[in-house]
């Protein structure tokens, strides 16, 4: 292992895949709406690790992946702000953060 000259790209990709799947699991199984938002942030971070890895290993001169990561961070910040505002508004109307009770749009 020590004769490598850098960390293999696969290591970063596997970490990001595992983080993404943990995020999906949390998104599907959480009953607290705040935890759902945290799972979304985990998934966005997994995507960011992926972009940064490719930018560093495959495009290490132009590093367009890093620019993409900055845009993803921007969108994630906006998403967190609006998501938590929606959550507060929901909590005011239904007095719960249980995802199972948010069924207004269910047919």
């Amino acid at each position, binding site marked *: 292992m020590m004769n490598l000259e850098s960390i293999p790209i696969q290591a970063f990709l596997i970490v990001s895949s595992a983080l993404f799947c943990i995020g999906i*699991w949390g998104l599907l199984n959480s009953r607290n709406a705040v935890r759902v938002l945290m799972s979304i942030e985990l998934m966005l971070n997994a995507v960011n690790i992926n972009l940064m890895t490719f930018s560093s290993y495959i495009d*290490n001169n*132009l*590093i367009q992946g890093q620019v993409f990561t900055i845009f993803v961070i921007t969108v*994630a910040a906006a998403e*967190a702000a609006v998501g938590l505002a929606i*959550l507060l508004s929901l909590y005011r109307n239904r007095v719960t953060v249980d995802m199972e*009770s948010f069924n207004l749009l269910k047919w």
Partner: protein
Amino acid sequence: MSIAITTQFICFIVLSLIVLIGAVGVVLLESIVYSAFLLGGVFMSVAGLYLLLNASFVAAAQVLVYVGAVNVLIIFAIMLVNKKEDLKPINDIKSRRIISTSICLTLLSLLIRVDLTNVWSLSNPQNSIREESTIRIGEHLFSDYLLPFEVASVLLLMAMIGAIVLARRDVMSKDISTGLPVDQELIEKSPEPLLTNKN
């Protein structure tokens, strides 16, 4: 990165373990406050991974935006909505767990298979711009990514206005749907919520 490869390996392994164990903790821990603080730890470790990938600017942005803004926002949201409540039991919870876990494991195995079997066309590490990445990002943002950059600023403005509109209490004196006078206090109100009858 100019540090020795052994050090890089040790840093990578420690940071990935923190990221993965922390993420599992975020998802599984009973207390949502612990989850939020663990999430901060995960964000910091992801910033460390960025440093290993020669991206000091994005690592700093990650710490500033995620740990400094998003995580604090989440902790504030938890403080505002953290009420002990007994969740209603779901009757088919076990089958849901089994289905979602199998979906996640299938996706994970597919992703790992792609990661390991694909032949990545790695570029020459000699071409790497290393610590110059901040300069290069600035060049990108003000030349070929100028339009997305400006659109992102509009997006942030819209998100700010939207969040304010959504999160503030009604300043109208009467509720539109019920016609009752609106409670203007800042503390949590106890009277009947609008939409709880449709459970």
